[in-house]
């Protein structure tokens, strides 16, 4: 699909993201929006939604969309970078019961600064940034190789073979 693909990841619910992007879909009826809602209780009313996706189908949707909107999880970030798609993220907050710790804020701070990656402060900021990014055909992240740096994997290989 072209348009916007939204994912909360595979492990925990994140209704705040689902609700915000469902509202964004209502305000942008000309743009296809599909949301993977996971274990959340909020079912989108304006966007298409699906509860879970097999990993290959998830990757196909990231590859086909114009803008990927997700929680600030490494699976989402790596999938976006590998597919060369701009990603807009809303970090999960421990205080709202959205994750066990606030490590997604740390990810936003340390990884979210890469080109092609965008972090929203809250739901209003998320919707504003989604409109700006989809309107401007946001530039993609810099491409990376399919695997980690050989210097890293060679070190793990040495550990295996020692």
């Amino acid at each position, binding site marked *: 699909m072209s348009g916007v693909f939204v994912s909360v990841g595979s*492990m925990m619910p994140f209704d705040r993201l689902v609700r915000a992007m469902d509202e964004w879909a209502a305000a942008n009826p000309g743009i296809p929006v599909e949301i993977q809602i996971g274990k959340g209780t909020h079912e989108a009313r304006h966007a298409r939604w699906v509860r879970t996706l097999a990993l290959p189908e998830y990757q196909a949707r990231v590859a086909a969309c114009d803008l990927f909107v997700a929680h600030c999880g490494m699976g989402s970030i*790596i999938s976006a970078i590998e597919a060369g798609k701009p990603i807009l993220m809303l970090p999960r907050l421990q205080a709202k019961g959205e994750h066990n710790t606030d490590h997604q804020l740390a*990810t936003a701070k340390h990884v979210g600064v890469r080109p092609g990656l965008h972090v929203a402060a809250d739901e209003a900021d998320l919707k504003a940034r989604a409109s700006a990014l989809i309107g401007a055909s946001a530039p993609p992240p810099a491409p990376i190789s399919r695997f980690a740096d050989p*210097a890293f994997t060679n070190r793990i290989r040495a550990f*295996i073979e020692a």
Partner: protein
Amino acid sequence: MGKRVLAIASGGGHFIQLMRLSPAWEGHAVSIATVDPSSRALVGNAPFFTFRDVSRADWWRIPLAAFDIARILLSVRPQVIITTGALPGLIACALARPFGVKSLWVDSIANSDVLSGSGEQAARVCSQVITQWPHLAKEKIDHWGSVL
């Protein structure tokens, strides 16, 4: 034939990070274990296993995950375990440790402010613990690189 390697990770970002390390065990007899059956499509011809997931939030499921992981260990009989987390990877390393199985804990790149809870425990269980962030390296916790 090389070593018998078990590469194990939970779902989502943990599994995607594990796959980015694949060249490390190329040529060895690797088996892959994770939680999502659809991940099989990404592992090629390697023997593929799934287990029931567990995290700190639902710790009462530890016996279920441990049972599944024990069965995988008995089937694979690994000489080396590589894990990118989370808690199930730690369980695998702990169960295998009395049998002299060498294990490497690769703390998730998501943990950039502090090491993960399981990563802190891993320092007592695994042969080697590494962080993907240079500023988190300390005694017994090395930095070798990152998946990105």
